[in-house]
C-alpha cells in the first residue's frame, strides 16, 4: 500500500507540452496530451473509483471500476485506459454507473475475507475505500468457490504475501516489471483460477530483490510490510532522504509517535520518483539495534576498559588531549576524517574544525578511497568535480556505456531506470571484468561486453578514442569550439598513434579488437550516448587517468552538454558528492577551491576570523605514514571505519596503535573504535536535520523524525568540541550552517532550507545564474571555460601476477549489504548475505582442487585471509572476486598499498593473489577474533556490543 496521504492521480503524468482541454462533471480542465480521462478527472478534483490503476504504472484496464460516460460515445469506457480528447465531456457519476460499480465491487468482496477490523491495512486499504465509495451495502453471492484458504508466504523478512486477500489486479506484477525491471512475479492460471506468484516458489527463493515496489503498489493487504503488521498504521510522516547509497532516494518515514513504522519512497523524490531498493525501504532497523552506543566513553589506552562519562567531561577531556598533543608535537600533529555518510553541514563543520580550530589542513574523507580520482579527473578536463547530468537524463540516452560499475547491486534505483531505458531500445555497452547482472537481464542484453583484464581500463578507453578519431567519427567542430586547441592537438597526435589501436592493445586488455571497434562506433555515432561509471574506474593505480580518459572520449564525440549524454560517476555512499563539495580534501576549501589561493583564504578568514594555512595537509594514507613516523598523533574520525574500509589492514592497525588520541564518532563500536581513546555516540539520519547531496549533485533534505539517542546530533558534537578547544563556534540549527556554506561557496549561493523545502531538492550550481539549480552541466560551454584534453598513456599497475601470486583479486559490493556493512549487517538483510565469499572460475578452482563451499586461503604480498569459495563463470579464468561487507573476512588484509598516482585512492580492484584450500581461519583472522574478544570485554559491563 502506498504511503498515507500521498495523492494518487490514477495514471502517470505525461510530459507533453501540448495540452488538451475537456470537461469532467462540468469542470473544465487542461492536461498534457496523452493523459488519461482518469488523470484529467483527478486534476479537476474528481476521484473516479479505481482498483487496478495507480499513477506509478501504465493503465491496464482490468477491474472495470473506473467506468465513465462520455458524451457522444456508446457504452461505459474505462477512464484509466481512455485518453483525453479536445472538447470531451465526461460524466463520472450517474445511477447506471453506480449500479455497474457496485456490481463489480460485489464480485470482489464475495471472494475476500471480511476481517477488516483486524487487517493490517485497516484505515489504509483501497478495497475498503472503494467499497465505501461505491456505496456497497450487500453481497448477494453465496459463499462458493473462493481463495480464502490460500496459504500466506512469510519467507521474506520484510513483507508478507497473503493470497487470500488478493484481487488479482496485477499492480504488483506490473510494478515489478515496469518500475523495478526484475520480472519476478507472474499471474498463474486464468480467469477465476488466476493467482499471483513469484515464479512458482516462495518470495525468498525467487528472483525477487525485495525492492518493495509491489508492496507499495498493492491496493489491499495482500502484500504488506511486516513492520506494519507489528506496529499498526502510522499517524504522521516525515519526508527525508535515504542514508545508504549515492542515488539519494527520498522517503516518507511513516511514524507512530517517535517510532518508525515504515519507510515508503516518496513520489516527490527527484532522484527516485517513488521507487526504492531493499536497503532504504527496509533496512533501517539498525537505528534501534541493541549494539548502538548512546553514551560518550573515554579511556587512556586501547587495552584499558572504557569509562562512560557525561558529554561535558568527554569534550573537556578530548580538547585537553588534542591541545596537549599540539603543544608537544606541533599544530600539524592532529587531523580529522569526515564521512560521506554524514550530512553536508556536519562535514562542513569538521573541516572547519580542522582549519579554524586545529589550525592546519589535515582533513580528508573516505572519498579518498572511492571517488577522489573523479574529483581530480573531471576538474582537470571539464572544470567541475561532479557528474554532468541528472538521473532523468538517462531517459534520453540512445547508447549507454557502463564502465566499472554494477548498478543493479550498488545503485539499484538508478539501475531500474537504466533498464527501463534499455527495454525501450537503448543499446548497452558494458566495460567490466565481470559479467555483471546487467549484461544479461530479462529483456535486456548488452550490445557489447568488453570483458577486460583488471587494471587495463586506460588501455581500453584509449583504444575506443583511437577508433573514433582514426575512423573520423569525432566531432571536430564541437571540439574546436569548446576545447583548448593546443591540448587537443597534442592529444590527437598521441591517441592516433598505432600503439593505441585496439589491435595493438588486445594482448594487454584481452578484449578482441573487433568488439572495441564496434563499441566505439556505437558510442560515437549515437544521437545521445551517456557514460556511467563506478569504483571499477577509480580504484586503480591509474584511476585519475581513466577518469580523464572518459572525459576525453565524451568531449571528442561531442557527448556532453545536453540531456541524454554526459559523464556520470555513480557514487558509492549517500553523501560522497556532498562531503567532497564541503571542503573535505586537505588541499581544497568548500567548493573545490585550492587552499593556496589568497583570495579564497581571505574570504574564509573574514568569515572565520582565523588564517587558513596555504599548504595542503595530509591525506588519509599520508596520515597513517606520518603516524608511524611519529609526526601525527591525534585523529578525529566522524562516521568512518578506516580500520575496515582502508587497504592493507596491517598497516592501518599499526598506524592507529601508534597514535595518542583517536576519537571515533559512530553509531556502533566499529573496527576503528577498537583502537580509539574517545568514543562519541553518533546519531542516525532519522535523528537529525541536514542535507545530503547525491550523485547528480542533488541536495536533498534530511529531516529529524526522532530525537538523537545520545542527546546530541553529530553537528552539535563537532561544535561543542570546537568550543571546548576554546573557539566560539555556535549554530542553533543546521540551516544556519547551510546559510554559512551558501555565503562562502559560489556554487551554493542560492541554496537555503527554505528553498529546499519549497522545491523539494536542488541540484547545484544554484546561484543567481541558476536560481533553481542546474540539472545538466556544461551546456554551451564547459565550466572550465575551455575543455582540456589530457594525455592518458597506459601504464601497467605495479601490482603484477607471478608464479607465486598468479590470480588477480578484484573487489565489489552486493545489493543487500552496504559498504563496511555496519548498518546492514544489523538488519534482516543478512538473510541474503551472511558472509563474504570468494568467487572463482570453475577452471581455476579445479586446478586447485577446490569445490563450491570449500574454505580457501587468499594470499597476497600484503597478507592472507580465509573465505568460502563460490564457483561461478561470472568471473573470467585468472580473476577472483570478493566483497568487503564483513570485518572478519579481512578482504583488506589482502589488498595492497598501491594507489592512484594523483590522489592515492587505493587500488582495491587489482591485487595479485594465490588461492588454496585450507581447513582453518587465517592467523590474521585468529588475532582479529582475539582482539575483538578483548575489546568486547573492555566495554562498560563487558557486554557483547562489539562486533
Amino acid at each position: 500500500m502506498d504511503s498515507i496521504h500521498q495523492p494518487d492521480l490514477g495514471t502517470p503524468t505525461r510530459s507533453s507540452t501540448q495540452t488538451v482541454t475537456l470537461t469532467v462533471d462540468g469542470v473544465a480542465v487542461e492536461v498534457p496530451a496523452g493523459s488519461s480521462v482518469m488523470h484529467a478527472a483527478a486534476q479537476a478534483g474528481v476521484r473516479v473509483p479505481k482498483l487496478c490503476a495507480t499513477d506509478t504504472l501504465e493503465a491496464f484496464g482490468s477491474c472495470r471500476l473506473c467506468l465513465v460516460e462520455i458524451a457522444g460515445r456508446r457504452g461505459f469506457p474505462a477512464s484509466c485506459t481512455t485518453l483525453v480528447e479536445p472538447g470531451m465531456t465526461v460524466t463520472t457519476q450517474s445511477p447506471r454507473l453506480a449500479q455497474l460499480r457496485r456490481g463489480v465491487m460485489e464480485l470482489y468482496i464475495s471472494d475476500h475475507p471480511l476481517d477488516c477490523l483486524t487487517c493490517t491495512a485497516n484505515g489504509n486499504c483501497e478495497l475498503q475505500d472503494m467499497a465505501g465509495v461505491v456505496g456497497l451495502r450487500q453481497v448477494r453471492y453465496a459463499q462458493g468457490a473462493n481463495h480464502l484458504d490460500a496459504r500466506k508466504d512469510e519467507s521474506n523478512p520484510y513483507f508478507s504475501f497473503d493470497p487470500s486477500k488478493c484481487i488479482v489486479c496485477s499492480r504488483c506484477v506490473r510494478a515489478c516489471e515496469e518500475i523495478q525491471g526484475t520480472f519476478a512475479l507472474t499471474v498463474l492460471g486464468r480467469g477465476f483460477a488466476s493467482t499471483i506468484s513469484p515464479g512458482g516458489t516462495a518470495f525468498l527463493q525467487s528472483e525477487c530483490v525485495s525492492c518493495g515496489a509491489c508492496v507499495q503498489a498493492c491496493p489491499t493487504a495482500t502484500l504488506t510490510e511486516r513492520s506494519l503488521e507489528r506496529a499498526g498504521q502510522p499517524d504522521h510522516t516525515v519526508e527525508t532522504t535515504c542514508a545508504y547509497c549515492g542515488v539519494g532516494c527520498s522517503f516518507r518515514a511513516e511514524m507512530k509517535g517517535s517510532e518508525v513504522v515504515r519507510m515508503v519512497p516518496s513520489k516527490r523524490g527527484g532522484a527516485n520518483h517513488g521507487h526504492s531498493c531493499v536497503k532504504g525501504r527496509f533496512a533501517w532497523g539498525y537505528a534501534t539495534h541493541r549494539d548502538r552506543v548512546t553514551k560518550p566513553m573515554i579511556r587512556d589506552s586501547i587495552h584499558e576498559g572504557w569509562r562512560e562519562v557525561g558529554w561535558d567531561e568527554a569534550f573537556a577531556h578530548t580538547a585537553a588531549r588534542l591541545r596537549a598533543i599540539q603543544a608537544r608535537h606541533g599544530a600539524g600533529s592532529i587531523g580529522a576524517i569526515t564521512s560521506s555518510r554524514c550530512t553536508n553541514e556536519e562535514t562542513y563543520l569538521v573541516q572547519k574544525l580542522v582549519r579554524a580550530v586545529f589550525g592546519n589542513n589535515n582533513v580528508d574523507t573516505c572519498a579518498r578511497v572511492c571517488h577522489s580520482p573523479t574529483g581530480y579527473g573531471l576538474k582537470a578536463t571539464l572544470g567541475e568535480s561532479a557528474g554532468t547530468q541528472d538521473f532523468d537524463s538517462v531517459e534520453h540516452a540512445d547508447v549507454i556505456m557502463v564502465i566499472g560499475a554494477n548498478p543493479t547491486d550498488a545503485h539499484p534505483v538508478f539501475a531500474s531506470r537504466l533498464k527501463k531505458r534499455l527495454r525501450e531500445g537503448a543499446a548497452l555497452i558494458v566495460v567490466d571484468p565481470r559479467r555483471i547482472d546487467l549484461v544479461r537481464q530479462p529483456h535486456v542484453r548488452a550490445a557489447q561486453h568488453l570483458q577486460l583484464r583488471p587494471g587495463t581500463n586506460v588501455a581500453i578507453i584509449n583504444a575506443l578514442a583511437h577508433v573514433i578519431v582514426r575512423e573520423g567519427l569525432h566531432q571536430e567542430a564541437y571540439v574546436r569550439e569548446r576545447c583548448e586547441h593546443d591540448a587537443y592537438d597534442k592529444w590527437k597526435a598521441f591517441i592516433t598513434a598505432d600503439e593505441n589501436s585496439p589491435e595493438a592493445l588486445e594482448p594487454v586488455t584481452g578484449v578482441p579488437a573487433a568488439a572495441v571497434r564496434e563499441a566505439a562506433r556505437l558510442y560515437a555515432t549515437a544521437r545521445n550516448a551517456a557514460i556511467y561509471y563506478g569504483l571499477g574506474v577509480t580504484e586503480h593505480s591509474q584511476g585519475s587517468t581513466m577518469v580523464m580518459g572518459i572525459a576525453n572520449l565524451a568531449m571528442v564525440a561531442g557527448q556532453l552538454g545536453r540531456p541524454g549524454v554526459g559523464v556520470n560517476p555513480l557514487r558509492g555512499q549517500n553523501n560522497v558528492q556532498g562531503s567532497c563539495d564541503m571542503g573535505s580534501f586537505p588541499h581544497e576549501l568548500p567548493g573545490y577551491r585550492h587552499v593556496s589561493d589568497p583570495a579564497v583564504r581571505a574570504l574564509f578568514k573574514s568569515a572565520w576570523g582565523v588564517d587558513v594555512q596555504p599548504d595542503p595537509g595530509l591525506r588519509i594514507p599520508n596520515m597513517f605514514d606520518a603516524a608511524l613516523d611519529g609526526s601525527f598523533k591525534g585523529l578525529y574520525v566522524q562516521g568512518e571505519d578506516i580500520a575496515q574500509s582502508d587497504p592493507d589492514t596491517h598497516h592501518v592497525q599499526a598506524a592507529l596503535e601508534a597514535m595518542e588520541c583517536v576519537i571515533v564518532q559512530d553509531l556502533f563500536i566499529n573496527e576503528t573504535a577498537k583502537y580509539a581513546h574517545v568514543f562519541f555516540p553518533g546519531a542516525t539520519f532519522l535523528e537529525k536535520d541536514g542535507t545530503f547531496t547525491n550523485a547528480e549533485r542533488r541536495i536533498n533534505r534530511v529531516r529529524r523524525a526522532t530525537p538523537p539517542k545520545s542527546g546530541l546530533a553529530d553537528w552539535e558534537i563537532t561544535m561543542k568540541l570546537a568550543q571546548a578547544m576554546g573557539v566560539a563556534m555556535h549554530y542553533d540549527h543546521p540551516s544556519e550552517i547551510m546559510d554559512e556554506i551558501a555565503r562562502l561557496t559560489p556554487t551554493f549561493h542560492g541554496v537555503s532550507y527554505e528553498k529546499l523545502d519549497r522545491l523539494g531538492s536542488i541540484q547545484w550550481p544554484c546561484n543567481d545564474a541558476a536560481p533553481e539549480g542546474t540539472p545538466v552541466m556544461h551546456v554551451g560551454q564547459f565550466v572550465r571555460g575551455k575543455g582540456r584534453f589530457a594525455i592518458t598513456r597506459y601504464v601497467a599497475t605495479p601490482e603484477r601476477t607471478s608464479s607465486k601470486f598468479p590470480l588477480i583479486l578484484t573487489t565489489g559490493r552486493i545489493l543487500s549489504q552496504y559498504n563496511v556493512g555496519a548498518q546492514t549487517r544489523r538488519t534482516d538483510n543478512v538473510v541474503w548475505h551472511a558472509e563474504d565469499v570468494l568467487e572463482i572460475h570453475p577452471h581455476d578452482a579445479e586446478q586447485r582442487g577446490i569445490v563450491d563451499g570449500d574454505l580457501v586461503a587468499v594470499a597476497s604480498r600484503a597478507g592472507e585471509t580465509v573465505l568460502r569459495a563460490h564457483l561461478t563463470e561470472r568471473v573470467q579464468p585468472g580473476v577472483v572476486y570478493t566483497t568487503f561487507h564483513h570485518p572478519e573476512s579481512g578482504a583488506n588484509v589482502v589488498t595492497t598499498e598501491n594507489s592512484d598516482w594523483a590522489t592515492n585512492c587505493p587500488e582495491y580492484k587489482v591485487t595479485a593473489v594465490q588461492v588454496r584450500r585450507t581447513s582453518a581461519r587465517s592467523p590474521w583472522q585468529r588475532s582479529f577474533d582475539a582482539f575483538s574478544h578483548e575489546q568486547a570485554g573492555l566495554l562498560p559491563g563487558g557486554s557483547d556490543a562489539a562486533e
Partner: protein
Amino acid sequence: MKIDKLVKMANEIAAYFDADPDRNAAADGLASHLSRFWDPRMRTQLLAWVDEGGGEGLAPLVREVIATRRPQLLPRTG
C-alpha cells in the same frame, strides 16, 4: 615518512606527466602537482633526502623538477 614510499609516489606522478611530449610542460605539471597535493612535510623530506644522498631511484623528471623548480616545492609562507 618512509622515503621509499615518497619516491614511489613521486615516480608514479612523473610517469603520468612524462607522457607530455613538451618536456617543459611535463616538468611544470609535476612541480605543480607536488606543490598542490603534497603536505609540505612530504616535500621537505624528499628534498632533504635528495640533498643528502643524491636521490637514487628517482625518475629523471623528478630529479629535473627538483633541480629546476625547487622554490615551488618549498613550504608556502602564507
